[in-house]
């Protein structure tokens, strides 16, 4: 928990988005379903891309080509989880503030997103990267996104 961030949580809780979701019966459930759709797209695409980076599948298709085919799926997934995730967060920001699992999730989410648009993007688009770098990139991508998912699921239990 980072106490200095508390004003941000107070603000998020008080947004009209947060209020609308909190004060109605259905939006939270519906948004959470869409959040799961996004997770499926993102994890699925990163999983497949990592299999290619490990050299387990589609060996005769260049890495950059697989990345091009999967890139829009993971991007769509990432945009979906972020938009729905922020909406869910706004509806219970102060609950999240005092939930350790939420902080662990964010400790994975921000590095994962940064990694996704930097190293992961570069390595998957290149034909010249070494097998070791490819393997490491695939492993880190899976590790980071799975961490986000595990702690995301855990929020509800704490």
């Amino acid at each position, binding site marked *: 928990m980072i106490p200095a961030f508390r004003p941000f949580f107070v603000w998020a809780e008080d947004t009209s988005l947060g209020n609308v979701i909190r004060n109605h019966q259905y939006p939270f459930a519906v948004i959470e379903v869409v959040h799961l759709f996004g997770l*499926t797209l993102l994890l*699925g*695409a990163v*999983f497949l891309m990592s299999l290619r980076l490990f050299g387990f*599948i589609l060996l005769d298709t260049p890495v950059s080509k697989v990345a091009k085919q999967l890139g829009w*799926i993971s991007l769509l997934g990432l945009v979906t989880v972020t938009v729905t995730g922020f909406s869910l967060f706004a509806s219970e920001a102060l609950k999240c503030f005092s939930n350790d699992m939420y902080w662990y999730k964010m400790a994975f989410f921000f590095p994962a997103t940064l990694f996704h648009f930097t190293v992961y993007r570069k390595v998957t688009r290149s034909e010249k990267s070494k097998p070791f770098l490819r393997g490491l990139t695939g492993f880190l991508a899976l590790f980071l996104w799975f961490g986000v998912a595990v702690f995301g699921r855990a929020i509800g239990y704490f």
Partner: protein
Amino acid sequence: MSLLEMCQWLQDTDWGTQIRESIFFFPVIEGMHVLALGISVGAVLWWDLRLMGFSMKDKPISQMQANIFKWMMPGFVIMMITGVLLFWCQAAKAYNSIFFRIKVIALILAGINILYFHLKTQRSQAQWDTAGIPPTSARMAGLFSILLWTIIIAAGRLMAYTF
């Protein structure tokens, strides 16, 4: 014994009670169910998009199948085992949930879709294996798969709100 009584009996077995009341096993089983969903359904989606002619168009369909299937099977097996355990420990609650019923129907339809595709549509695969855009019957199989999995995921998540 009626179906509901059977569900109630299942839920009340030692195993069912222990899983339901465990602060460790229940969250772990449910977490694994969701993670396995992400990778296996995510992978099947790519296969569906290939069948519909929207992705990996210059890759023969048989090769896509050979590459993807063995990697998504573990996910599906985990999802099935954890799904059975989750049902086991709250069978009577599930029986009474409209979303669970929708989910079961969608799962059965997804199974029929797969069987029909393998037994009927794929018989002529040699003729369209390399086609960028496969024939309508194959594209429909991909479309149905995506729609049914969408329903399965939504109903599965919404079930938990009625418990």
